[in-house]
């Protein structure tokens, strides 16, 4: 059936009179600017959605006008912190019992009076219509549930990278997240509410209910309550997880004495659900009956879903509805059933934000004039609670299921994000090298590592705002929030999709932003940029003196030495903190001598002897020495060879990575000293673009649309990715349709150890696209 989560009405009513205290200011955030409300009221849970704007600080750089005398001569650019307003979507999920309290809170805090209407969906919407209208003074406008559900589903599939997952109860990691396929259609959505609806979705607006069944969650609950005298749905699931269905079900072996070999039916197969209970002289335990019922219903739904998937030739089947809603027991039985009936050809997929789909959809319906689908949105890790396991007594960090509020926040991204057109196979591209949800040892290490580094980050954050006395307090809040996230992830590694070094870094950035530390490294970057710039001329001059071949090697060593200057790596930041004199030459000395850990320099050199590349796309890393003394001379050489260069840098700050804003200024200054760079800019052979990201890592499937356009226009035939975050933590295995060069210095001894190297080992990975590699191989040892 269509209703999602429409369940027992009695469960909500008896709890209504509870006196509830909640910390709503942490839950209903940014209500001052909230508009466009939508609400999805299910049988037990309410989901509220609204659009709001968030004012937060952003660090901007502005070049000093060097023509005027007032400019302080020692600084290249000035840093200013500005207020910026960005759009954010808020989704909050809470028990129906809290509706009244929540509505009161919203009413008291709602400032925006333009809002006249609230979009509503879900089975409970009509029941609370009067209450909502009275409390909020908004007109309730009902939207079709299934339409909302599908709209919401499309939205999360498109905007949240690790939205869908496969559930494997007995695997090392229970949750295996799927990479977003660029084309999400067509798919089958099996919504298991009281009944079951099977919907085929072909495009944003085209979907059809192709089938359904009356045997669904309501049957499990209703029949289960009759059989076991257990009232609550969750308790029934609990019972089921402890039961033995074989005492109630008639198995093939009960009939045959063994298997039915000629049909390939194994003895343990259920021949007849409840087949053994057709007797008056036996008592059956509640647990066993609940288990048998769960199997019966899950198998039946799985079978129907398969029949429909086959008929419509669909291989992506998502399951949702209150029967699923994160319950490991039902995810397991559904997965088992699908696997059985399709012999593994179809995988049962589940969604992290399944419970929010209706609310998201209703919201989108209301916001159609703003057309939220024209933007890209990103999950805000700081403001979202993440997926919680609902199986009780599993984790000490487990929040009680009732009485809690679950939140999802999504930020509107400045730009629309698309795939790098040069990805060999966008559908199989996985940015992250190690999935920490699967690798327990790596997870342990990195969680520890990020916790260790926390003090330093807090210190840096405070230091970045010396004029603001309350910075220390905010930094402390940041510390608590991020530490809490880390602790949560220790027990629920799958909370935000696959746990990766990238997601840990991104979560930290989101938390820093949350507490208005938009760019803790702005001053460090400024100082280092100023310093490095002074050496640029000298560096270029000394390179000029070398022979061609010596120069090529020196350029590569320069990039690598520059890459040592990374405040994100604790081993380096400790050195930089204690030794301000640590310079470019010292860094070179730290570098591993050839042969490097991964070393295809010879192939690279051979390649350079050939015709120049048409255009190189260079994903740059750190500010200071790295970009100025490492990357720029390398770029200069490429330009001199006749290769066009596109420099891609972060749109927003992350650690000491150079941002597009900073790079613009730096490049102009370098151009003033260097005719080669000057000419490059003038002739439009050197282009600066932003990546669309604010992460120390790089997801090549979510890049600024403009970048993709430039890459295509310039017929880019070489991609250079620099740094540990972009070339090792991510993209180490990325396959491209053109030549690629991945350069990084390993600044973490644990990782070095894992890769078989040591601290300051070098990865220099030059690769040809797969088709070409056959003839002209650059064979590299696997990591």
């Amino acid at each position, binding site marked *: *059936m*269509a*209703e999602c989560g429409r*369940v*027992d*009405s*009695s469960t909500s009513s008896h709890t209504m009179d509870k006196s509830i205290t909640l910390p709503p200011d942490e839950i209903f955030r940014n209500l001052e600017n909230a508009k466009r409300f939508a609400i999805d009221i299910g049988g037990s849970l309410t989901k509220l959605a609204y659009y709001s704007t968030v004012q937060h600080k952003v660090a901007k750089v502005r070049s000093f006008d060097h023509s005027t005398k007032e400019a302080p001569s020692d600084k290249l650019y000035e840093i200013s912190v500005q207020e910026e307003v960005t759009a954010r979507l808020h989704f909050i999920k809470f028990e129906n019992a809290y509706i009244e309290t929540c509505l009161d809170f919203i009413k008291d805090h709602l400032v925006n009076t333009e809002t006249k209407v609230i979009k509503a969906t879900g089975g409970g919407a009509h029941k609370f219509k009067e209450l909502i209208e009275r409390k909020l003074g908004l007109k309730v406008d009902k939207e079709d549930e*299934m339409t909302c559900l599908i709209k919401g589903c499309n939205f999360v599939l498109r905007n949240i990278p690790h939205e869908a997952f496969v559930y494997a109860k007995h695997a090392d990691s229970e949750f295996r997240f799927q990479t977003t396929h660029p084309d999400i259609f067509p798919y089958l959505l099996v919504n298991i*509410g*009281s009944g079951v*609806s099977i919907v085929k979705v072909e495009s944003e607006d085209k979907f059809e*209910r192709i*089938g*359904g*069944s*009356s*045997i*669904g969650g*309501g*049957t499990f*609950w*209703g*029949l289960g*309550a*009759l*059989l076991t005298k257990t*009232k609550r749905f969750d308790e029934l699931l609990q019972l089921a997880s402890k039961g033995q269905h074989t005492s109630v*079900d*008639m198995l*093939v072996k009960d*009939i*045959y*004495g063994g298997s039915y070999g000629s*049909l390939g*039916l194994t003895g343990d*197969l259920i*021949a*007849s*659900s*409840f*087949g*053994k*209970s*057709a*007797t*008056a002289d036996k008592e*059956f335990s509640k647990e066993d*009956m609940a288990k048998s019922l769960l199997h*019966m219903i899950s*198998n*039946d739904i799985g*079978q*129907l879903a*398969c*029949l*429909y998937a*086959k*008929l419509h030739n669909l291989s992506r089947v998502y399951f949702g509805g209150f029967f699923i809603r994160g319950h490991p027991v039902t995810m397991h039985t559904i997965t088992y059933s699908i696997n*059985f*009936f399709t012999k593994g050809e179809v995988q049962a997929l589940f969604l992290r934000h399944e419970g929010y789909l209706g609310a998201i959809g209703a919201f989108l319906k209301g916001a159609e004039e703003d057309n939220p689908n024209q933007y890209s949105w990103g999950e805000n890790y700081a403001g979202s609670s993440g997926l919680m396991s609902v199986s009780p007594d599993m984790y000490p960090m487990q929040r009680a299921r009732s009485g809690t509020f679950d939140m999802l926040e999504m930020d509107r991204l400045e730009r629309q994000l698309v795939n790098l057109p040069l990805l060999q196979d966008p559908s199989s591209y996985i940015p992250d090298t190690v999935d920490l949800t699967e690798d327990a040892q790596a997870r342990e290490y990195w969680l520890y590592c990020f916790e260790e580094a926390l003090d330093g980050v807090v210190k840096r954050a405070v230091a970045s705002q010396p004029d603001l006395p309350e910075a220390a307090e905010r930094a402390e809040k940041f510390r608590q929030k991020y530490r809490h996230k880390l602790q949560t992830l220790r027990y629920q590694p799958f909370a935000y999709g696959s746990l990766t070094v990238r997601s840990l870094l991104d979560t930290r950035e989101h938390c820093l932003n949350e507490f208005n530390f938009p760019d803790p490294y702005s001053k460090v970057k400024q100082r280092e940029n100023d310093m490095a710039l002074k050496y640029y001329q000298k560096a270029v001059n000394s390179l000029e003196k070398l022979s061609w071949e010596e120069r090529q090697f020196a350029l590569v060593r320069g990039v690598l030495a520059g890459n040592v200057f990374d405040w994100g790596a604790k081993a380096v930041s400790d050195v930089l903190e204690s030794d301000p004199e640590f310079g470019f030459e010292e860094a070179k000395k730290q570098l591993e001598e050839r042969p490097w850990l991964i070393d295809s320099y010879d192939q690279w050199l051979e390649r350079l002897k050939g015709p120049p590349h048409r255009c190189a796309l260079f994903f740059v890393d750190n500010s200071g020495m790295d970009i100025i003394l490492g990357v720029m001379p390398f770029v200069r050489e490429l330009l001199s060879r006749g290769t066009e260069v596109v420099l891609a840098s972060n749109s927003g700050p992350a650690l000491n990575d150079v941002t597009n804003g900073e790079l613009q200024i730096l490049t102009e200054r370098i151009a003033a000293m260097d005719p080669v760079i000057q000419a490059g800019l003038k002739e439009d052979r050197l282009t600066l673009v932003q990546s669309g990201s604010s992460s120390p890592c790089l997801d090549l499937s979510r890049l600024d649309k403009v970048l993709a356009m430039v890459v295509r226009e310039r017929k880019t035939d070489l991609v250079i990715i620099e740094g540990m975050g972009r070339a090792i933590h991510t993209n180490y295995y990325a396959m491209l349709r053109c030549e690629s060069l991945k350069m990084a210095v390993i600044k973490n001894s644990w990782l070095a150890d894992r890769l078989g190297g040591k601290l300051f080992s070098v990865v220099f990975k030059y690769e040809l696209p797969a088709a070409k590699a056959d003839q002209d191989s650059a064979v590299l040892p696997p990591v």
Partner: protein
Amino acid sequence: MDKAKSMVDKTGASGPFHVSNGQSQRGFHGPVVVVTNGGSSGGPNSSGGAFDGVHHLHRGDDAECNGSPAKRCRIRRRTESVRRNRPPFPWFGMDIGGTLVKLVYFEPVDITAEEEQEEVENLKSIRRYLTSNVAYGKTGVRDVHLELRNMTMCGRTGNLHFIRFPTQAMPRFIQMGRDKNFSSLHTTLCATGGGAYKFENDFRTMADLELLKLDELDCLIRGLLFVDRMGFNGLPEGYYFQNPSDTQSCVKKPCSLDNPFPMLLVNIGSGVSILAVYSEDNYKRVTGTSLGGGTFLGLCCLLTGCETFEEALEMASKGDSTNVDKLVKDIYGGDYERFGLQGSAVASSFGHMMSKDKRDSISKEDLARATLVTITNNIGSIARMCAVNEDQPGPFCAP
């Protein structure tokens, strides 16, 4: 979503199998979907399958056909020769299912005086015992209304009797076989169903009887085609319901399988098997479901405290499932037009039972009815999908 108004009134109707009222006879979609009572549902059943194994072993007995004197002569000669190879009486066929044992017994009525004299006492007493009773022990039942009278088989004329008893009584049955010294009759005991395997050893060790084990799906198809060929005492064996969704104008119509292939055969026993049958000996099991007759009876026993299938059906015929099931109109106030769902369609089986008040006030009859509707609708839904999928090229689900 299937209709709440199911075909409940008709489930009580007797007759071995139901044939859907497809208009065309070709293809799976729309065409012949045959539903058979696998037996566990306890009602009347057809399974002459295992028995037909005997028939199959001794083929060439088309004595039932008439023709010219020369042809009759040929037939007589052939009948004579068959008679020499004919298995000795008694002729039994047995289908040992998960819930019920179905026994078919052929009572010859053309016994000559000579035969009568030769017949051992043991055999006579078996015949008398079976044909003069309609109930055996506490649980055995002979479905007199199903008896096929004056039929010819392997050149002999006789009556075919249908007897059933619970599989739980199997040990007692074997015991009886020993007590009556059944093994002295040197008969071949043809058996199919899972029990043929499960109880094979018990037959051997307890009663000194060897079973001729036959595959149940082979037997099912053979039995189906046999009873169709035989007819039911002059009437077609199969039937279907015309206008099934309209209680007023719904009528039971007889039909025969003149041109049966390909057909989808849905055999509802304790569980359900769905077969795609292309010819008498070419078929595959497409899928099955564990929600079958055993589920109906099992759930009814748990929910209502009833003990037999008859009791459960009786209750179901008096109940109203809409007190138990949540209908589309209970949720949407009427039809859900966006998806063309009628208000009377079941949205959630047992959906009303989520509420405690409704649980406390529900009648056993309503629960039995809802159980029946749930199971039958589900089987119908899966069968329909299989029929549609069978018409599609390419592989399909076949566990």
